[in-house]
């Protein structure tokens, strides 16, 4: 394997590509050079840390979906939650406010409002950005960690709560709307 044999073997072990022969050969080499174990450990640590960081940096991929071409009927798949409500509300406003006697024109406007480009891709960040821009959103507080779980070297799963502060004006008595520090009414219902 040449002068870089130990380096190649370490690479294969770290990358989980080593065969049984590779592992036996590595152990054989490490018998006469115990520093190889330390190098293996350090490379595993480094790759574990780097891999965790790369996974973080590419995590957004899990949220980016495609909307198939020509699939206007599939657009609903690209929208979710209250962003879909926004689109519907915009559509309704156009229909209600146009005052145009021709159904054709109304439909045309509705289509433009309700349907973005056929292949538009929306990620959670888009939805969140829109939500955070709402007039009833005051701001976001620090996230709270609930629990952590080690998955593998350099990688952890973290459960956390995002805290977003909203404000609402209510007409109902406070006793009916608040129980201790808990809001017992549905703000969306009140705003509606």
């Amino acid at each position, binding site marked *: 394997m040449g002068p870089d044999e130990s380096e190649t073997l370490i690479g294969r072990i*770290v990358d989980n590509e080593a065969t049984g022969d590779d592992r036996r050969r590595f152990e054989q080499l490490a018998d006469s050079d115990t*520093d190889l174990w330390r190098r293996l450990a350090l490379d595993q640590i480094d790759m574990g840390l780097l891999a965790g960081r*790369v*996974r973080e940096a590419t995590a957004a*991929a899990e949220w980016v979906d495609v909307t198939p*071409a020509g699939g206007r009927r*599939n657009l609903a798949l690209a929208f979710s939650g209250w962003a879909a409500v926004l689109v519907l509300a915009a559509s309704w406003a156009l229909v209600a406010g146009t005052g145009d006697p021709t159904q054709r024109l109304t439909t045309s406007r509705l289509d433009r409002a309700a349907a973005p480009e056929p292949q538009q*891709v929306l990620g959670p960040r888009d939805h969140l950005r829109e939500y955070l821009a709402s007039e009833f959103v005051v701001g976001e507080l620090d996230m709270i960690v609930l629990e952590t779980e080690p998955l593998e070297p*350099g990688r952890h799963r973290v459960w956390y709560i995002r805290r977003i502060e909203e404000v609402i004006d209510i007409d109902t008595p406070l006793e009916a709307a608040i129980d201790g520090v808990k809001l017992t009414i549905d703000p969306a219902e009140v705003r509606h």
Partner: protein
Amino acid sequence: MGQRHSVDEPLIERARDGHSVAQQELWRVHRRWVAAIILAHRPRSVEVEDLLQDVAVKFIDKLHTLREAPAFRPWLRQIALNVCRGAARSSRTTLRLGQCRDDGDGRDIGTVAEPASDEADVQLRAEQRDAANRLMQQALGLPLAYREPLLLRCLRSMSYQQISDVLELPVTTVETRLARARRMLREELRQLDGSFDDRTDLNGGRTDVPSTTE
């Protein structure tokens, strides 16, 4: 070049024929490594997610032009490269206009809020995060020929064979480049640290190991 493996040809063909479910599934299977390609090639002022969305649009738009299913990975990589190049051109224009939002001297590799618990945990996590960020910074500074396979390798799902499929390189070349990339990382870190091995270990103690004899 080695034979290509692990490509789901029936899925690709169904997707190419316009089956929307197959298109969505095909994208989901491959989007993570596409993000790693973008990470390796993107201009520093542009977010991975934004570029990935552009790739997703082009993926659907151009899928019918894919000639051979086995060439799917290099084809998708080329789309990602084109999107990155386009972003780089726009980015240069923005820079000339003095409106670049990245005013740092390095890539924006993103930061994650530090979850807090007790003090020792916080310190350990901070050290791990520092080490991870430093490694990432060094990895992103590697020559492209080494950076790209290294970032792909960091995704657990990518084997040497799959990386060789994406990059259209022999497996042996991928392996050699990965080994060199790791060596370059070690050397860069050693230069930064003065003593590469004098590091805090992941168990919270000092490694206190003798310096390397490589």
